């Protein structure tokens, strides 16, 4: 009879998987304990949900986009229109939720383009080093020579104001942050013994990059992406506010605030509610990112 105490030694894949599950579980536990990050996570989920199902959750989905109903314009908040109506008579609440769609889309597109690109260049430059690294790093220096918003503004100068050009402008700057981050991590890990061990064992460079270096970048990148989402939305709203991003009638929150600010202080609801909305969206991402940073034990400064 086979003794149940006998166990076959686990394979490397099994141990790695077990270790990964353990880290995940531990990270989730730490995350759960931090109430602030839970609140942030809940907020983000809520807003993303609302934006995704905007058509179904908003009271007046037909008010989005080009819509005019001047008779009902400038209505203060009421039971029919919780956040009032704007200069064209559209329901502010509806437009806020549809506007947030644009903000999330902006974040998604910008990060979706810039993160892979930046991470790739970061890995490359950090691993290869030498002239390649110098060239890549100098290019990032140029893009970082101006604060993000200003640089985006300058790039937008070339185009007619529109949301997609704004997205392009922001994306073309954003990769630099991730590139720098990953470059730094790669450089410091490159000299660690486990990488050298892989090299001695004859692992190909690609394998080293993906198996040894990249996993170490995963946590900081995840934290940074979460915090970035908030920041990208902030920059996007800023661009829109200045008239360079989302254009009416496809307004995003920044545009709404810009238009609404002209009607201060009498028609305050046109400014205050979009402002609150964008504040809570950004706050949600920040809280979430902060909580993730704690749970995944990444240092500050990311």
């Amino acid at each position: 009879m086979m003794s149940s105490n006998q166990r076959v030694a686990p394979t490397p894949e099994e141990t790695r998987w077990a270790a990964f599950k353990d880290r995940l579980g531990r990270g989730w536990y730490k995350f759960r304990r931090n109430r602030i990050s839970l609140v942030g996570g809940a907020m983000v989920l809520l807003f993303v949900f609302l934006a995704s199902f905007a058509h179904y959750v908003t009271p007046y989905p037909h008010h989005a986009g080009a819509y005019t109903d001047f008779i009902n314009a400038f209505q203060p908040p009421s039971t029919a229109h919780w956040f009032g109506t704007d200069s064209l008579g559209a329901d502010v609440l509806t437009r806020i939720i549809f506007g947030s769609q644009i903000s999330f889309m902006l974040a998604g597109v910008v990060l979706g383009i810039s993160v892979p690109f930046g991470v790739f260049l970061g890995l490359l430059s950090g691993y290869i080093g030498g002239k390649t690294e110098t060239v890549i790093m100098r290019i990032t220096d140029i893009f970082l020579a101006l604060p993000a918003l200003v640089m985006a503004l300058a790039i937008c100068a070339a185009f007619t104001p529109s949301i997609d050009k704004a997205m392009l402008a922001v994306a073309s700057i954003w990769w630099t942050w991730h590139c720098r981050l990953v470059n730094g991590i790669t450089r410091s890990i490159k000299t660690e013994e486990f990488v050298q061990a892989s090299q001695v064992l004859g692992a190909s460079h690609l394998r080293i990059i993906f198996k040894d270096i990249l996993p170490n970048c995963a946590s900081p990148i995840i934290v940074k992406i979460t915090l970035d989402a908030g920041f990208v939305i902030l920059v996007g709203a800023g661009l829109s506010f200045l008239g360079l991003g989302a254009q009416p009638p496809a307004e995003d929150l920044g545009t709404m605030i810009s238009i609404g600010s002209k009607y201060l202080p009498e028609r305050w609801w046109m400014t205050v509610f979009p402002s609150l909305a964008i504040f809570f969206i950004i706050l949600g991402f920040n809280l979430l990112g902060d909580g993730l940073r704690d749970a995944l034990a990444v240092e500050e400064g990311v």
Partner: protein
Amino acid sequence: MRFSYFLLRRLLHTVLVLFGLSILIFIIARTLPGDPARLALGPFAAKEQLEKLRHTMGMDKPLPLQYWTYITGIFRGDFGLSFQTRRNVALDIAHYLPATVELVLISILWVLILGVPLGVMAARYKDRWPDNLVRVIAFVGVAVPPFVVGLILQLIFSYLLGVIPTTGRLGLMTSPPVRHTGLLILDSLIDGNFSALGDALLHIILPSFAIAMTGIGQIARLTRGSMSDVASQDYIEASRGFGIPNRIVAFKYMLKPAFIPPLTILGLTFASELSNAFLVETVFAWPGMAKYGIRAILRKDFNAVMGVVLIIGLAFVVVNLIVDILAGYVDPRIRKRQEEE
């Protein structure tokens, strides 16, 4: 010896980066769609007029030549002509820059005066209510868009309470000081014009605070973290162990190392202040670089855009350089790292 070598290399690097920036923006501005000449002269301009303007602007020459003319012009102080104002962009900038400089300087003052003490207080009362309050302030500061802060402040203090004027640098009724530096506060002091001084201060208080919110949040948070890190260090315990009084330990031996992380991000804080300035100036109709720059962007006045970009880029890299040198001066560990690079 080694430090001046490091300095030289940084300066060289700075110059290269600025050149790269200028090339980048130049290419973007000049090669992309949109006809600035038409925008400047309007849709009814005749063809010859457009051609004449293009010729004056040098737009009919090949691109590298245009760049070369431009760059050499910079060193002579000739930033090209603005489409809008028809004068040297350098003059335009000289006109609008001081307003922004004054605003950003006061904002930095806010950040230091509020951010640092808040952080120290939070560390001192760690995990009790002052700490939590500061954390809330920090989160809010970083999450709120600056233009929202500006609008809300405007709403409360200008519209609702009526204590602070809504827009501009100076009220229409106040007689302005003579323009020595362009900085109203300084100029009023020089002139002894106290009514202008008071009015200028009143006008600057809201926009500068709106700009400073992000920085206050960042610095408070970082100061708190680094103060509490330092407090638990061995060397603090050791200095107490050697008999150094607590007051000295706190104010000298804890503060100095604790200031280093906030110091190193001052460059970043300055960057966010600049960005915020662009947004807040619009809210308060502040006659500064933002107004000029944004109008230039919308009208495709590329000489003006180049000028603004270069000046801001210059300011930014210079500030970063100063911050890095300062950090190296205060913390020998950083200096060592700098020398090793």
